[in-house]
């Protein structure tokens, strides 16, 4: 399940770009690898995030995983529902399981990300090794 309208990172985050803002989450592949997600640590609105740097973490029963921001910018909103229902990331990774919304400080960063086809091939390639 790799929605075509999103851009992807090698660390399995997605971003939905809408003009100058981007909504960020983790992919279906990532949530499936992690298993039952039980805790999410996210930045606050107003915090600055940088591309390829950790913006928080997602924890499943068995492991903790850093989330790397696909882009740089200021956090506009965080998904407050995840505090009590982190499992939304498992059940709806591209919808209700979104993590943060940011304003893009450099829209060109999006061009370095993978398309859905590239990401699907990337995941398949990794699975083969």
């Amino acid at each position: 399940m790799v929605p075509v309208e999103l851009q992807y990172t090698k660390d399995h985050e997605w971003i939905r770009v809408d003009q100058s803002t981007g909504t960020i989450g983790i992919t279906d592949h990532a949530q499936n690898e992690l298993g039952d997600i039980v805790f999410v640590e996210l930045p606050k609105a107003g915090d600055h995030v940088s591309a390829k740097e950790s913006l928080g973490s997602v924890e499943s029963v068995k492991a903790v995983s850093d989330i790397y921001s696909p882009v740089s910018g200021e956090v506009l909103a965080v998904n407050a529902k995840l505090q009590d229902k982190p499992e939304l990331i498992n059940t709806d990774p591209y919808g209700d399981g979104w993590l943060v919304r940011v304003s893009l400080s450099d829209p060109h960063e999006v061009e370095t990300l993978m398309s859905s086809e590239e990401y699907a091939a990337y995941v398949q390639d990794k699975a083969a090794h």
Partner: protein
Amino acid sequence: MTTGTAIQLKRTALYAVHKAAGGRMVEFAGWEMPVEYSGIVAEHLAVRAAAGLFDVSHMGEIEVRGRESQALLQYVTSNDVSRLKDFQAQYTALIERQGSAVDDCVLHRFGEGHYLLCVNAANTEKDFAWIVRHNRFDAEVRDVSDLYSQLAIQGPRAASILARVTSPDPTSLAPYWFMRARCLGVEGLVARTGYTGEDGFEFYFPPEESERVWNCLLEAGKSEGIVPAGLGARNTLRLEAGYALYGHELDDSTTLLEANLGWISKLDKGEFLGREALLEEKREGLRKKLVGFEMLDRAIARDNYRVSVDGREVGRVTSGSPAPFLKKNIGLAYVPPEVAGAGREIEILIRGKRWRARQVPLPFYKRSKT
């Protein structure tokens, strides 16, 4: 998780069945094992409420036979072998001279001069070599791991499920007793043992029959809610039950007394490896102590995170995880004895920040007797 490995991983006879059932396969102790099927939480809760079926065929089995096999086992293990009756089992440890565990294991006695040790997969070769090295007795030691598949059927419904397909009726077994039995027509050993904190059984049998036994047990227990369960749930279940895991709570720098395993260290049974060291530690006092804790904040402690008190580092977490049944974030850690004590607070360093935790009595979870 992405690195290729040159080492050929071992597979149990059920590898294909796990793959077909959607098991997520991971490397564990040199084996390619299912860590989860439907999910760790669902599997964990199924074992607490109904039953789970685990493939634990990676575990090793070492047979000790011969006139002086009891004497050999008394010398290399910490528990008192002479207390075992025929077809009784005991939790014990192979012990180093300095009082640490070579491995923790379950010893089964068939009769005079015939014993079977069930040991951790990662330690099988080491354990075998260790026993052989100390075998100055009239006893024969054999690694018979390849002769057995091992399934664990665990949970409050395990007994009624297993009874339906096994004879003689295994529900007559008391905890830590075993018998020869036919399960689904397959001759093997049924022991009332486990690693989950629930009632349950472990079935040792010839690997050739593995697929049929696995599938039929799942079928037999379907109406009672049995599910296949992986190593992920096995770990969270044993942690809630406060059981040690070799490589986490037990290693060569930790004595049995420090690991709260004084109850399997029978210092009055006569000479054995490690006895002097344990006696001395008893006189001098422990250097560290294993404690249980639960997080007071929402953060999750993980293996090897640092433990501090008033900002001063005092130890490390040995196992830390969310506890799916207790719905708390719990862990085990070694701390200096002067810091240990249920109710006292400690701090866990998590990604650069100290989070509060409170020590609690062990085990975290104890099943209610019905």
